[in-house]
C-alpha cells in the first residue's frame, strides 16, 4: 500500500485495542445512504517508475524554448544552492511556525527575509509574504481603505498589469470598494498626468503606482506619490524586486515616500513553472503595521533571555479575531520565501545589482537593434527597465508563430488587453540572454518581417 506502513498484524492489534471488528466498522456513523465508494475517473495506481516515465514524457513534450516573454513573470538564473537547500525536508515538510520553539529555523529565516524586503523597498516593515503579486495588490487596496476610513475608492492606472487589475476587482468588489482606472499617455506609455487632473477634486483611499509599469516603462513616481499625498490618499507602490536594485525604492518616492509597497516576488529565485507557486511581498510604513495582513515575525527572547523569533501581532489574524480579522489569509508562501531569502543572500547587493543592470542593458540593446529593422518602432518613448513594447508593421501574431516554429518565444501581444495597441509586442531580455541570443532574435524577426 503506497505510503501506508501497516502490516496485517498491526491492523489486527489496533482493531483489538479499539474493540472494532473491521476498519469498515469505524465508519458506522456515516449514514448508509450517503456512502459512495465508486470512483469512475480515477485511474489505478502507478509505481514510482511508471509515473516517472509518464512525467518525463510530458516534460519532454513541453520542451525548452528561448524565452523573451516577461509580462509579470521573469526568467532569471537561479543559483543551484537555492533549491537544494529549500527542498531540504526540514524546510519542505515543516508546518506553519505556530510552535515557535520547534520552528526557529523558519522563523529566523522569515525575519531575515523581512529585513531584506524592507530594505529593498525602502520601507519600515515587511510581512512574511502573501500569495502572489496580484493578490498582494488587492490586499494593499483593502488595507488602504481600512486606513483611510472615509473613501472606498481606489485609483489604478491602466499601466498596472491587466490581470492584477482584474484580481483586485474580484477581491474588493465584495466589500463595495470601487476601482477607478486612470488612462495612460499614448506617447510615453506612462500614467497620463493631464488625465490625472480630472480626479483632483474626488476623494480616493489610494493611488496605485507601478514601477516599472506593465509596458516596462518607468513612471514619474515622485510626482505621482506627491499627487496622492497632496489629496490625503495613500500611495501604493507595485514594484519589481529585481529592478529595485537599480531604481529608487518606494520609501524614497516623493516627499514622504510611498505608504505600502507590494509586488511579485517570483524574480527572486523562483522558477517560472507555468505561473506558480510564486509569492507576493508587502512592505509598509511603521504606522500601518497593524493594518497589514498575513504573518509577521518578531525578534524576541526566550524566558532565559536568549534571542529567539516568534509570530507576532497575531491579534490581527483570523485564528484569533475570526470575523474581525484584517484578512482571511492563513497560509503564506513560506517555501517560496525560503528560496527568495537564500537567493538574495547568495547574490548580495552587488549580485542583484548586476542581474538588474544586465537585464536592463540586454533589453536596451535588443530594442536598439530591433528598432533599426524596417517595420519596427518603439511603441512608447518613456525610459524602460527590462521590457519594451515594439510595434510591428505586419500582423504580430503571425510573427510570433514564425519565431515559435524556430524555438523562440518572442513576447506577448499587448492587443489582448489593450485593443488600441495593434501588432504590438512586449519583449523582455533578462540577464539570461547572451549576445548570441539577441542576435538570433534580431535575425529571426528580420526574416519574419520580410517573408
Amino acid at each position: 500500500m503506497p505510503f501506508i506502513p501497516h502490516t496485517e498484524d498491526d491492523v489486527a492489534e489496533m482493531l483489538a485495542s479499539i474493540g472494532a471488528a473491521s476498519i469498515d466498522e469505524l465508519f458506522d456513523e456515516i449514514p448508509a445512504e450517503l456512502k459512495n465508494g465508486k470512483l469512475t475517473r480515477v485511474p489505478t495506481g502507478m509505481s514510482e517508475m511508471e509515473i516517472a516515465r509518464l512525467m518525463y514524457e510530458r516534460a519532454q513534450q513541453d520542451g525548452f524554448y528561448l524565452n523573451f516573454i516577461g509580462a509579470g513573470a521573469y526568467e532569471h538564473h537561479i543559483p543551484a544552492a537555492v533549491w537544494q537547500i529549500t527542498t531540504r525536508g526540514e524546510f519542505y515538510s515543516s508546518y506553519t511556525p505556530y510552535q515557535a520553539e520547534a520552528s526557529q529555523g523558519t522563523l529566523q529565516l522569515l525575519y531575515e527575509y523581512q529585513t531584506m524586503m524592507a530594505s529593498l523597498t525602502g520601507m519600515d516593515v515587511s510581512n512574511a509574504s502573501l500569495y502572489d503579486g496580484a493578490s498582494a495588490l488587492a490586499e494593499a487596496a483593502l488595507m488602504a481603505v481600512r486606513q483611510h476610513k472615509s473613501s472606498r475608492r481606489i485609483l489604478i492606472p491602466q499601466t498596472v498589469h491587466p490581470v492584477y487589475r482584474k484580481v483586485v476587482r474580484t477581491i474588493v468588489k465584495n466589500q463595495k470598494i470601487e476601482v477607478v482606472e486612470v488612462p495612460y499617455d499614448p506617447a510615453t506609455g506612462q500614467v497620463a498626468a493631464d488625465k490625472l487632473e480630472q480626479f483632483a477634486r474626488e476623494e480616493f483611499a489610494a493611488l496605485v503606482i507601478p514601477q516599472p509599469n506593465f509596458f516596462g516603462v518607468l513612471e514619474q513616481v515622485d510626482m505621482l506619490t506627491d499627487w496622492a499625498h497632496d489629496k490625503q490618499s495613500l500611495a501604493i507602490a507595485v514594484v519589481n524586486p529585481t529592478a529595485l536594485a537599480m531604481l529608487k525604492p518606494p520609501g524614497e518616492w516623493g516627499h514622504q515616500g510611498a505608504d505600502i509597497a507590494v509586488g511579485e516576488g517570483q524574480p527572486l529565485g523562483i522558477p517560472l513553472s507555468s505561473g506558480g507557486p510564486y509569492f507576493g511581498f508587502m512592505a509598509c510604513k511603521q504606522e500601518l503595521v497593524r493594518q497589514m495582513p498575513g504573518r509577521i515575525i518578531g525578534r524576541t527572547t526566550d524566558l532565559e533571555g536568549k534571542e529567539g523569533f516568534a509570530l507576532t501581532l497575531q491579534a490581527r489574524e483570523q485564528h484569533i479575531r475570526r470575523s474581525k480579522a484584517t484578512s482571511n489569509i492563513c497560509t503564506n508562501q513560506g517555501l517560496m520565501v525560503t528560496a527568495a531569502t537564500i537567493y538574495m543572500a547568495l547574490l548580495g547587493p552587488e549580485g542583484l545589482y548586476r542581474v538588474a543592470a544586465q537585464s536592463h542593458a540586454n533589453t536596451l540593446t535588443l530594442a536598439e537593434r530591433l528598432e533599426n529593422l524596417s517595420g519596427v518602432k518603439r511603441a512608447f518613448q518613456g525610459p524602460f527597465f527590462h521590457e519594451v513594447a515594439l510595434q510591428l508593421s505586419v500582423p504580430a501574431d503571425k510573427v510570433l508563430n514564425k519565431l515559435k516554429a524556430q524555438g523562440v518565444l518572442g513576447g506577448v501581444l499587448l492587443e489582448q488587453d489593450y485593443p488600441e495597441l495593434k501588432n504590438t509586442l512586449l519583449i523582455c531580455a533578462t540577464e539570461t540572454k547572451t549576445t548570441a541570443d539577441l542576435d538570433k532574435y534580431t535575425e529571426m524577426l528580420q526574416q519574419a518581417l520580410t517573408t
Partner: protein
Amino acid sequence: MLIFEHSRKNRRNYSQAPATRPAKSNIPDNLKRKSAPLLPEVSEMDTVRHYTRLSQKNFSIDTEFYPLGSCTMKYNPRACNSLAMLPQFLAHHPLAPEDTGQGFLACMYELQEILKDVTGMSAVSLTSMAGAQGELIGITMIRAYHDARGDTERTEIIIPDAAHGTNPATATMCGYKVIEIPTNREGDVDMDALKAAVGPKTAGLMLTNPSTLGVFEKKVAEMSQIVHEAGGLLYYDGANLNAVLGKVKPGDMGFDVIHMNLHKTFSTPHGGGGPGAAPVGVADCLLPYLPIPIVAHEQGVYRWLTEKDRPQSIGRLSAHMGNAGVLLRAYIYVRLLGAEGMFRIAEYATLNANYLMAELRKLGFEIAYPTRRASHEFIVTMKEIKDRTGVTAMHLAKRLLDKGFHAPTVYLCLLIEPAETESKETLDRFVAAMKEILDEIETQPETVKTAPHAMPLKKIDDVKAARELDLVWNPAG
C-alpha cells in the same frame, strides 16, 4: 546569528551573478537608487551552512511526528517533488502559447477530472492558492448566484462555532454578517439553533465535515435540506476531506461548493506555512461562476478557458493560474495512489485516530466525545487536569516538543490527528510519551508548566514580541 552578521564588505559570489556591471542605461538619474539595499555579503559556502543550520532548528514531517489536528501532516513523497521539478516544467513561462505546454496542461486537466470524481462535484477550478482563498472564491460565487437571481436581501452566512477561524473571516471579507450557531454535547451542530437561524436573509452555511471537533455530522442531509429550503447554499470546507476520501462525497451530502486543501489530503508540502493549493468544486447551480482559468480538452487539444468562454465567472484570483507546481505534486500523488489508494487514505487515517484515541483513553485522558467514533482526529479535553493541577493544554503541548513530538493543535484542548502514513510503532511511542507527561503532571507539574526544556530555546516570550516590536534587523543595533 543572523545572515547579516556573517556579512563582510565586498565579499561576493562570482559564479552566480553576471560577470560584468554594464553601464549602458537609459534610466533618468532622478529614478535611480542612491544607496545599496541591506543584503548580506556572504560566500556561497557560508550561505549554505547558515541556512542548513537554520533548517536543523525546525521540526518537520521528515524528522518528527506531527499529531496536528485538522492539518493532516502526512508524508510528502519525494517523487512528487522531483518529478514536479523536471527542468522543462520549471522553465515553462505561464504566458507561453498553449501548444508549448500540452504535457503540463494534460496533467492539470486530469487532476480536475480526478478531483471531480472524488468529491462528486460537477466542475473544478484549480486556481485557488490556499484554503482561505478557496473559501473566498466559494462565498463570492454564492453571492454571484444570489445576485444573478435578483435575490439581494441575503446578508448572512451561518457558521458553526467550532469552525476554523478562516470561515468567519472569509464571510466578513465577502461583505456578509456572520451568524454563529452552537454545537451540542455530542459534537453535532445544534439543529434547533440552525432552524432558528435560517431565513430569508440566509445566503449560505459553511460546514466542515467531519467537523473540527473530529466527528462526522450525521444529520448533514437534514441540514442541507433546511438551508436549501430557506433559499441558501451549502459550502463545504474540505479541511478534513482526508477522513472520508472515497467513503462519502461532498456532492452526495448536498454541498453546492467545496474547497479541498491539497496540502492536506493530497500530500503537497506545507513548506513552513505554504504554498498551499485549494481547488474549488461546484454543483451545476454554480458552474457559470467558477473562477478562471480552467483547463478544457477539445479535439485532442488542451486549452485555458478564459473570460470569453465564461462571461459570468467571478473572475481571476491570481496573476496566472494559481500554484501550478503544487498542483503538479498533487497530480503525481493521486496517480501514485490510484483509485484503490484513495479509499485507503481515509481507512488508515481513521484507524490510526481511533487507535490513538483508545490508547489515550486507557491512560486516563478524557476524550471530548467519548461516545463517538473519531473521524481522522479527536479531542482530548484538559479541563479536569487543569482545574486540579494548573497544567494546561499548551503546557502539555510544549512538553511534547521535549519528547520529540510536534504539539497537537491546541485550543483549550488538544486536537489530535495522526495521518495514515504513521506506523503503529510511532503511535505507540507517542502514547508512551503522553504517559510520561501524565506521570510528570502528578509528580513534578512544574517541569511540565515550564516546558520546553530540551529545545534550543526555552519558552518564547510572545508578549515581549508583540509589545517591543522588532520586525527588521537594524545594523546600528
